[in-house]
């Protein structure tokens, strides 16, 4: 059914259609509306049987999800930013134990400095935690990916993170097509656990494993991610046949045929990129965008196949590896090993800085003529940076950086956007 609603509400309804049996959550912006929506559905009896558990922290949220999943329940939670960091130890445990929990990450920056706005630092910090990580381009895809995530995770017995841009998607009202309960039921069979804590047939889960088998257990997690590389496109195809729209999959090219320049990106910025690329194409530039829907497993072969015909690749990412540069770029470069291509990393939109069509067009035009710096910080305020560097060079007690910069910037309340 078509409706106009908030991204968080759409995700809450889609998760409810997946019939989770345990939902545990601790509120943190910008994820809060999702679990509030689910809380209402549980309380009103719309979603049953389902236990909604208010926990005391994100660490507890993931721990409860682990316990619930180990007991054979379909378990769901959501978090963002510092919340994801606080649950990090349990996040690794969930994947190490092979428990198919689904978690929404409403992508948000990590402090310090504290910042509630969107970028991809939070889920990227858990890049190597063993979870599958799927990224949504818009709210339709966000809700569709949750339905696919339960299916995929439970088949493989691995947890799945669905990453959606905080605020930009979670708080945006847009048109979505909400599937029927019957269709979701037909697509997503009841959870059949590979392992279950059952008093009638007691087992233990979570043994200590020494050097004799630890590497093998780890390798098996990798093997599952490799299986996911095959299953993700199949599940997306099956989803498209049943629901009549393309959502998910490994990668999604847009106007990449004959493109000399291809931009690689994750999440909602792909939408703005598509509009930018239409404009640049209209001006004669041969350019396209490759959206990566599955960041873990990283689809090396699909990325290589999509990019190998291009002359240059621009990875535009809302994440930043301090001391190196791009995070996504590193993986893209691995996919391109041995190919002679110009490669650029553009860091953009950190901490919620708006990514505008104008800035993208300027940056991509520079890339097209190979005038772009290999590592570019889009719309960085260089005078602001340099002033602080001068201050630090001039005096020892230069004071806290964030406060200095805020003072230099002045009041932002009077700014329009």
């Amino acid at each position, binding site marked *: 059914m078509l409706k106009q609603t908030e991204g968080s509400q759409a995700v809450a309804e889609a998760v409810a259609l997946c019939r989770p049996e345990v939902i545990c959550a601790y509120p943190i912006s910008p994820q809060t509306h999702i679990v509030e929506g689910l809380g209402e559905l549980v309380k009103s009896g719309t979603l049953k049987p389902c236990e909604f558990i208010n926990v005391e922290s994100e660490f507890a949220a993931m721990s409860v999800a682990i316990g619930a999943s180990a007991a054979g329940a379909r378990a769901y939670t959501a978090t963002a930013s510092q919340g994801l960091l606080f649950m990090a130890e349990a996040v690794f445990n969930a994947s190490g134990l092979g428990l198919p929990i689904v978690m929404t990450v409403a992508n948000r920056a990590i402090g310090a400095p504290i910042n509630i706005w969107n970028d991809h630092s939070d889920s990227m910090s858990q890049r190597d935690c063993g979870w599958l990580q799927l990224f949504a381009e818009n709210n339709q895809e966000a809700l569709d990916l949750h339905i696919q995530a339960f299916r995929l995770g439970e088949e493989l017995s691995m947890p799945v993170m669905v990453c959606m841009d905080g605020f930009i998607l979670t708080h*945006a009202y847009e048109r979505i097509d909400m599937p029927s309960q019957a269709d979701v039921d037909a697509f997503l069979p009841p959870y059949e656990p590979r392992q279950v804590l059952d008093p009638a047939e007691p087992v233990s889960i979570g043994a200590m494993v020494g050097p004799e088998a630890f590497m093998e257990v780890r390798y098996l997690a990798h093997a599952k991610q490799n299986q996911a590389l095959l299953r993700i496109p199949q599940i997306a195809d099956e989803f498209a046949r049943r629901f009549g729209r393309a959502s998910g999959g490994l990668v999604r090219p847009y106007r990449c045929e004959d493109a000399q320049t291809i931009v690689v990106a994750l999440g909602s910025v792909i939408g703005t990129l598509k509009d930018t690329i239409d404009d640049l194409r209209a001006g004669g530039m041969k350019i396209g965008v490759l959206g990566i829907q599955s960041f873990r497993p990283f689809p090396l072969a699909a990325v290589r196949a999509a990019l190998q015909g291009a002359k240059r690749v621009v990875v535009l990412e809302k994440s930043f590896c301090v001391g190196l540069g791009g995070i996504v770029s590193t993986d893209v470069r691995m996919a391109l090993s041995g190919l002679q291509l110009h490669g650029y990393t553009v860091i953009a939109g950190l901490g919620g800085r708006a990514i505008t069509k104008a800035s993208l067009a300027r940056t991509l035009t520079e890339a097209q003529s190979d005038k772009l710096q290999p590592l570019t910080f889009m719309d960085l305020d260089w005078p602001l940076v340099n002033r602080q560097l001068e201050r630090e060079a001039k005096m020892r007690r230069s004071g806290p950086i964030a406060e200095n910069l805020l003072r230099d910037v002045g009041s932002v309340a009077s700014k329009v956007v």
Partner: protein
Amino acid sequence: MLQIRIHGRGGQGVVTAAEMLSVAAFEQGRHAQAFPSFGSERTGAPVVAFCRIDDREIRLREPILAPDVLIVQDPTLLHQVDVFQGLQPDGYVLINSKRSFDELGLADIAARFRRERLITVPASEIALKHLGRPLPNAVLLGGFAALSGLVSLEAVAHAIREKFSGKVAQGNVDAASEAFEVVKNEMAELAHAQTD
């Protein structure tokens, strides 16, 4: 694509207004996207929300820098925020005020844009009458329907009923309808004045 920027203060329902406008546009079969400028969640702080309306899927995610429509829920913002920033030459402006553009000291602005598209409406007073609270957001949407004809009053009423229920919904619908009439009359007067 039609781009609307709504300015107000925390607590005035700025974000809700953008959301309702998107619901109204959806109701009329159009694609719409509404989103807040995030972060200023303190009561009284300047807040901006955005709405885009189009006949095809809206992919653009940048804030609205060059709006076709400005709705100002609180006239005290006029001296604090450059609300007119980026306004298109043939844009619409709707300000919540008992006073006219000239009385608000906006004669310069009025001269730069199409006069018949610049309207003030006493939305807080109308809201107070129907709701008992000076919440101008839904009222201004009724005014916007009259000013632009880009959404219908019926679609606005539908959106209000989707967001609110019972007496609050009815009060807002009544207030929006009154604002619709007030703006229609003002526009007729403006047209008359211009012909003179």
